[in-house]
C-alpha cells in the first residue's frame, strides 16, 4: 500500500495522469459551458462514444488523425443540438431527452462501429516542446506530451478567461443564472443557449475523439468505459467553475491510477479496484452538499470558496419570451 503510494508520485506517473486526463478535460469543459448556459446534456457518455467512433472512422479512412477531431466535434454538436431543440423549442424534459440519447448513441456506435473493432489505431503524434521539456520534473509532466494534451489545458484556461473575464462570458453566466434579466438587457437567451449547448457538445465530441485517437487508441466495444458519467459528477464537484472542474478531473485521474496500481498487491480485487472512482464520486458529492460542513466552513471564506457548489439558478429550466 505504502509502496503504491510512493510509486504514485514518481514523475512518469504524474505525467501519465496529466496526459490521460485530456479526454475528460475537453468533455468536462464542454458540459460546464452547456450547464452554465442552463442546458443539462445528460447524453455525455453516449455522445462521447459516438464521437469517438466518428473520429476514429474518419482518421482511419483518410489516414489523417487531424481530420478525426473535427468529425467528432460535429457528431457531438449534433447530439447536443437535439437536446437543445427538444428542451428549448418543444419543452421536453432535458434529462429524459439526454438519457434516451445516451442509450441511442451507445447502441448506434456499437452498431456502426462493428467493422472497426480491432483495426490498427491511428494516434496523435508525440510533440515534446523543445527546451521546456528538458526542465527537470516540470518538463516531462507538462511539456512532453502531444498537441491534443496541450490543447486540453489551453481549453481549460480559455474557458475560464472567457467565462469570467469577458463581456460575452458574463452573458453566458446571465442566461444560466437570471435569463429574465439577461433578456431585459437585450441578450437573446434562447439563441445563445443553442449556441453554447452546441459548443459544449463539440467539446464533448473532441473529448470522445481524444479517447479513440489518443488516450485509449483504437475502437473497442466500449471505449469510454462509463467515464462520460463521471464528467457529469465532476462538473458538480467543480461547482460549475472551469478551473475547479479541471482540478476535479486531475484528482479523478490520480485516484484511478492509484486504484490500478493497487491491483498487483490485491489480485483478488482486480475487478473491484478500477471501479473505486464511482463510490468515490458519491462520497465527494456528499461532501460538497454537506450542509453542516458548509455552515462550519462559512467561517473560513477561503475554504468555503473551495468547496461551494451552487448550480446555475436557471439550470434545466425553460425560458420563454412573453
Amino acid at each position: 500500500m505504502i509502496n503504491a503510494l510512493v510509486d504514485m508520485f514518481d514523475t512518469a506517473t504524474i505525467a501519465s495522469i496529466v496526459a490521460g486526463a485530456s479526454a475528460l478535460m475537453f468533455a468536462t469543459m464542454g458540459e460546464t459551458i452547456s450547464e452554465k448556459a442552463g442546458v443539462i446534456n445528460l447524453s455525455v457518455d453516449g455522445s462521447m462514444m459516438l464521437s469517438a467512433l466518428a473520429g476514429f472512422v474518419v482518421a482511419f479512412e483518410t489516414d489523417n488523425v487531424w481530420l478525426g477531431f473535427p468529425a467528432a466535434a460535429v457528431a457531438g454538436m449534433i447530439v447536443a443540438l437535439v437536446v437543445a431543440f427538444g428542451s428549448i423549442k418543444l419543452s421536453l424534459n432535458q434529462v429524459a431527452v439526454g438519457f434516451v440519447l445516451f442509450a441511442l448513441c451507445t447502441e448506434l456506435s456499437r452498431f456502426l462501429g462493428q467493422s472497426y473493432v480491432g483495426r490498427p489505431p491511428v494516434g496523435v503524434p508525440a510533440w515534446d516542446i523543445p527546451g521546456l521539456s528538458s526542465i527537470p520534473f516540470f518538463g516531462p509532466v507538462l511539456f512532453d506530451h502531444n498537441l491534443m494534451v496541450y490543447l486540453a489545458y489551453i481549453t481549460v484556461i480559455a474557458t475560464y478567461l472567457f467565462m469570467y473575464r469577458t463581456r460575452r462570458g458574463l452573458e453566458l453566466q446571465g442566461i444560466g443564472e437570471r435569463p429574465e434579466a439577461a433578456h431585459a438587457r437585450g441578450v437573446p437567451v434562447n439563441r445563445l443557449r443553442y449556441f453554447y449547448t452546441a459548443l459544449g457538445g463539440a467539446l464533448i465530441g473532441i473529448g470522445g475523439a481524444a479517447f479513440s485517437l489518443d488516450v485509449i487508441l483504437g475502437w473497442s466495444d466500449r471505449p469510454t468505459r462509463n467515464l462520460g458519467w463521471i464528467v457529469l459528477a465532476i462538473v458538480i464537484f467543480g461547482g460549475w467553475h472551469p478551473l475547479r472542474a479541471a482540478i476535479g478531473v486531475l484528482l479523478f485521474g490520480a485516484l484511478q491510477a492509484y486504484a490500478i496500481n493497487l491491483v498487483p498487491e490485491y489480485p483478488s480485487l482486480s475487478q473491484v479496484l478500477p471501479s473505486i472512482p464511482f463510490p468515490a464520486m458519491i462520497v465527494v458529492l456528499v461532501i460538497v452538499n454537506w450542509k453542516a460542513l458548509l455552515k462550519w466552513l462559512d467561517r473560513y471564506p477561503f475554504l468555503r470558496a473551495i468547496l461551494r457548489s451552487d448550480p446555475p439558478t436557471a439550470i434545466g429550466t425553460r425560458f420563454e419570451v412573453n
Partner: protein
Amino acid sequence: MSRVNSVLLPAAVVVASVVGLLLLAGTNPWDPLKIIVEGSIGWPPLEEGAARKVGDTFMVWVPIALASAGLIVTFNAGMWNIGIEGQIIMGAIASAWIAREISVSRPILVFLVILAGAVGGLLWGLLVGVLRTAGGVNEIFGGLGLDFVALSLTTYLIIGPWARSGVASTSGTDPFPEDSYLPALGAIKLSPLAVGIALLALVGVWLLFKGTLYGLKLKAVGRNRPSSFLLGIPTNRYLLGAFMICGALAGVAGTSQALGFHQRLIPAISGNYGFLAILVVLLARFRPFLVIPISFFFAMIAVGSSSLQLRLDVNPSLGGVLQGVLVLSAMFGLGWAGYRALKEMSASEAKAGSG
C-alpha cells in the same frame, strides 16, 4: 390533424432511420425483422420450438415489466431512478445468497428467495433515497455510482468467494441448487409465478395511483415538492417510500433473472433491463397498462436480435438502436404536437384580440 401527425411522423422517422441503417450495413430491411420475430416468438406461429422461444421472451419480459412498474412509482415522485440497474443486481445477489446457503423445503425456499430479492433491491434503493434526502446527492449520480458498485460486487463474487469449483471462470457461478429455481413449465423456461408477480405489480402500481391517498400524495410530492411540504406531507419520507417500492420490485426482477432465467449468477445479471425499462416507461408515458405490450415488444426485440449476428452478420445492437429511435421519435413527436397546438392557440387568441 396534429394527433395523426404525432403518431405518423415518429413512425416514419423510425422506419426511415432503421431502413437507412440496414442499407448502410448492407442487408435488406426485411430479413432482420423476420429474424427478430422468428427468434422471439417463432415464425410461422406455433412452429416447433416456438413454445421455448415464447417462454424465453416472457422471462425477459418479467424483469422489464417489474422494473417498469417500480420506475412508474419513482417517476411519479419526480425522481430519476437511474440506480435501477444496481437494485436489480442486488436483488439477484441477495436471492443467490439464499439459494446457495439455505436448504429448506422447496415452496418455502422459493418464497424466501423472492423475499430476499425484494429486500436486497429495497435496501439498495433506500440507499439512493437516503443519499438524496439526507446527503443532497442528486439521485442520478448516487444511483449511477451504486450501479457500478453493485456491478463490481457481482464480478468480485463470481471470481472470488462464489467462484466455480475447479476452474476459476469469469463467465459465472455454478448453477444454484434446483430446489431454489422459480417453478417453471417443465422444459420451458417460463415461470408462471414470475409472470404473475409482474402482472400483479403493474396492477398494484395502477391501483396505487388510481385509488389510494398514498399514491395521490406521492404524485403531489413529484409535481411540487415545496408546496407538498407546506401542506404537511413529509416529503422526504415519501421519496424514500418511492425508492423502497421501486427497489423491491427491481429486486424481484433480479430474482427472476438469477433463479428464473440464468439459474446461476453471471456478470451481466441485470441484462441492462433496468435502463431498458426507463425507455419503456418513457414510451408508455408512465401508464402501467401500456407497459405490458410495450415491454413485451421490447423483450421480443431483445431476445430476437441476439441471433442477428449469427444469421445475418448484423450487430445485435440493432435492437437497441431500434428501441432508442422509437422512444426518441415518440417523445419528439408528442413534443412537436404540443408545440403546434400551443402555437395555434396563441394565434387564434391573437386573432380574437385584434377582432
